[in-house]
C-alpha cells in the first residue's frame, strides 16, 4: 500500500471496506436466520413426537454446557468438523465437487495408526511424524480424483464417492487382518504407545492439541486463499473457469492441487480421531463425518476463517442431539433432519436473494415516502 493515497483513493478504499463489512454482516445474519429457522422446524417436529417437548429441546440447546465431559465432547467434535470443513471449503472454493474427505479421513487414521504402532520413535517427534504421514497420504489420495478431473475431465463427484468406499474397505481390511492383535475377538488395534499420542489440553476431557492444529490450519488456509497468487487463481477458477483460462491461469494444475491440498486437513481429522480421541484404531472410526464437513463448509460460506465458528455451532447441535437422545430417543436423528433443512435453506440462494430484494424494495419505498 503506498504511504500517501489520494483522498479519492482513500474514499474508494473505505467504500469497498464498508461494502465488505456490510456483506459479511448480511451473510452472518442470513446464516444465523437459517439455523434459527431450521431449529424452529426441529422444535415443531419435537412437539409432535415427544411427551415433554420443552425439556427435550432444552437438552438439545443447553446440553453441551451442562458438564465438563459434555463440554469436552463439544470441543472434540468441533476439532474434527473444523478440519473436515476446511477440507471441503478449499475444494468448494475451486468449485470442485470432490467428496473425498471421508476416504481421506480413513486413510489418514490408518497411516497415523500404522506409524504409531510400528515405528519406534522417541516422544516429541513420534506424534509429529504420524501426523505428517497422515497429511501426506491425504494429499496423495486427493491427487487421484484431481488428476482424473484435471486431465481427463472425469467427474470428481463419482470418482471421489467410489474412492471413499475403497479407502474404507482398505482400512477395514488392514485393521482386521493385520493391525488387530492376533486371536482377539474384537476389531480394534492395540493402544498406541504414549509417544504417539496427541497431548491433551483440558484434564478430564479428550480435547487435545489437534484443536490448536485445526485453528492454525484455518489461518493458514485463509492466508493461502486470500493472500497468495495460488489462492487468487484457485478462487478465480471457482468463480469463472473460462475466464481463468483466458487469463492464462493453469486451471488444470489448480484443480489438481485444490483436491490434493483439501486432503491434508481431512486426513488430519482422521489422525485426530486415532491419535487424540480413541488412542487406537477402531472399526468404524467415522460414521459419515466427511459428509458432516459439507454443512460446516456451507455454514462458513467456504471461508476458512469462519470454518472454526461454523464447526463450533454445528458440533454444539450434534452433541446436544446426543444428549437429547437420552430423554427423547430421537435426538441424533432430529439433528440430522435439522442439518438437511439447513443445507436446503442455505443453498436456496434464490430464496435468500428474493427476500433481500423484498427488503431492499421496502427500504427504498420508506426512503421515498
Amino acid at each position, binding site marked *: 500500500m503506498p504511504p500517501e493515497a489520494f483522498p479519492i483513493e482513500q474514499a474508494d478504499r473505505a467504500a469497498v471496506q464498508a461494502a465488505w463489512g456490510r456483506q459479511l454482516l448480511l451473510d452472518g445474519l442470513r446464516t444465523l436466520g437459517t439455523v434459527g429457522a431450521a431449529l424452529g422446524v426441529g422444535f415443531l417436529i419435537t412437539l409432535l413426537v415427544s411427551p415433554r417437548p420443552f425439556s427435550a429441546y432444552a437438552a438439545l440447546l443447553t446440553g453441551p454446557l451442562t458438564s465438563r465431559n459434555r463440554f469436552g465432547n463439544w470441543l472434540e467434535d468441533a476439532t474434527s468438523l473444523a478440519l473436515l470443513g476446511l477440507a471441503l471449503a478449499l475444494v468448494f472454493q475451486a468449485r470442485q465437487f470432490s467428496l473425498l474427505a471421508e476416504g481421506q479421513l480413513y486413510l489418514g487414521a490408518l497411516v497415523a495408526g500404522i506409524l504409531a504402532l510400528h515405528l519406534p520413535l522417541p516422544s516429541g517427534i513420534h506424534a509429529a511424524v504420524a501426523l505428517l504421514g497422515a497429511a501426506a497420504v491425504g494429499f496423495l489420495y486427493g491427487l487421484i480424483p484431481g488428476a482424473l478431473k484435471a486431465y481427463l475431465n*472425469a467427474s470428481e463427484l463419482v470418482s471421489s464417492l467410489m474412492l471413499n468406499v475403497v479407502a474404507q474397505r482398505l482400512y477395514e481390511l488392514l485393521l482386521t487382518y493385520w493391525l488387530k492383535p492376533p486371536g482377539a475377538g474384537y476389531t480394534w488395534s492395540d493402544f498406541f504407545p504414549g509417544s504417539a499420542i496427541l497431548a491433551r489440553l483440558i484434564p478430564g476431557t479428550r480435547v487435545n492439541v489437534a484443536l490448536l492444529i485445526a485453528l492454525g490450519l484455518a489461518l493458514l488456509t485463509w492466508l493461502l486463499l486470500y493472500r497468495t497468487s495460488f489462492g487468487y487463481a484457485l478462487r478465480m477458477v471457482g468463480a469463472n473457469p473460462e475466464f481463468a483460462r483466458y487469463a492464462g491461469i493453469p486451471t488444470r494444475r489448480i484443480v489438481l492441487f485444490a483436491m490434493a491440498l483439501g486432503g491434508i486437513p481431512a486426513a488430519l481429522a482422521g489422525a485426530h480421531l486415532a491419535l487424540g480421541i480413541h488412542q487406537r484404531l477402531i472399526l468404524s472410526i467415522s460414521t459419515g463425518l466427511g459428509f458432516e464437513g459439507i454443512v460446516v463448509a456451507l455454514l462458513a460460506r467456504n471461508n476458512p476463517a469462519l470454518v472454526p465458528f461454523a464447526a463450533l455451532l454445528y458440533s454444539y447441535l450434534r452433541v446436544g442431539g446426543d444428549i437429547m437422545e437420552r430423554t427423547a430417543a430421537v435426538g441424533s436423528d*432430529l439433528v440430522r433432519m435439522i442439518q438437511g433443512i439447513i443445507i436446503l435453506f442455505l443453498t436456496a440462494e434464490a430464496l435468500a436473494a428474493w427476500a433481500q430484494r423484498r427488503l431492499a424494495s421496502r427500504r427504498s419505498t420508506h426512503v421515498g415516502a
Partner: protein
Amino acid sequence: MSELDVLQAILSAAFLAGILRVTTPILLPALGGLISELAGVINIALEGTMLVAAFTGVVVSAYTGSPWLGLLAAMLASLLFAFLLAFFHLNLKTDLILTGLALNLLASSGTIFLLFTLTGDKGSSSRLASLTLPALDVPALASVPVLGPILNGHNLIVYLAFGLVPLVWILIYRTPYGMHLRAAGAHPEAAASAGLNVRRIRYSALLLSGLLAGLGGVYMGMGYLQLFQRDMTAGRGFIALAAVFMGRRHPVGTMLAALLFGVAEALANQLGNLRIPPQWVQMIPYLATVLALAIYAGVQQRRTTQRATRFPGGPAT
C-alpha cells in the same frame, strides 16, 4: 468349508438366482440415474428416494393389508420426493448435488423418526405386519433345464427391473422424448434455442428417475426383505450411480455394470468362508468404476479435441 464346497456353492443355481436378487435394487435406481444423467441432471438423491419408497411401501401395506396399495403409495411418495429435488434445483436454483445430499439426510433421518413414532422402535419395522409383493412361479419356466431354477420364482419386481432395460433403451434411443432428453443433457443451450423446454424435460427426467429408484426401494422392503430397516439401502443409490458411469451411460452397459456389482456382493458373501478377506472383492467394483470412468472420460475428451481441430472455427464444448 473347503475350496471345493465354495466353488460348488458359487456354481449352484441358488447362487446365480441370488445374483439376480441382489442386482435388482441396484439396477432399478441405476436406470433412473441413467435417465436423469442423460438429461444433464445427476440425481444424488436416489439413495434417499429408495429409503422413502421402502418405508412408505412397508408401512402402507401393513396398515391397509394390501401390498398393491403399499406399492402405489410408495410410487407416489418417491414422485413427491423427486419433485422436491426438481423444484429446489430447477425453480429455486439450488445446487443439485448439495440438495440431493440434503434430501438423502432428510430421508434417512425422517424415516427413522417416523418409524419410531409409529412403532416405538428405531431399528426396524418388525412390529408391523407388512406384506411383500408376490413372486412369479411359472411352471413352464421352472421346467426349463439349467435356466429354470435360476430364472423362476423371483419377486415380481425382479422381472420388472430386467424387463425395463429394453424399455428404457427404446425410450432413450427410439422416441422423440429420448432425443429431447439427450439434447437437454448434451447441450442445454442448443436444445433451448431449438425450441425445447429444457426445464420441463429435466423435471420429467428427475421424476422418472425417482419413480424407478422408488421401485428399487419397494423391492428392498417388500421383496428382498419383508420389513423396513433404518438405512436399509446401505449405499445402493450411490452404487447405482456408479453403475451408470461404469456402463458408459447406456442402458445395457448400466445393466451389465449393475450385474457386476451384484456378482461382487454375492461373491463377497461366499468368500468369507474361504478366509479370503471379503473386503478385496467388495473393493473391486469401485476400483473398476474409477477405471471405467477414467477410460470413458479420456476417450470422450480425445473425441472433442479431434472435433475441435477438424472444425477450427467451431465451438469446442
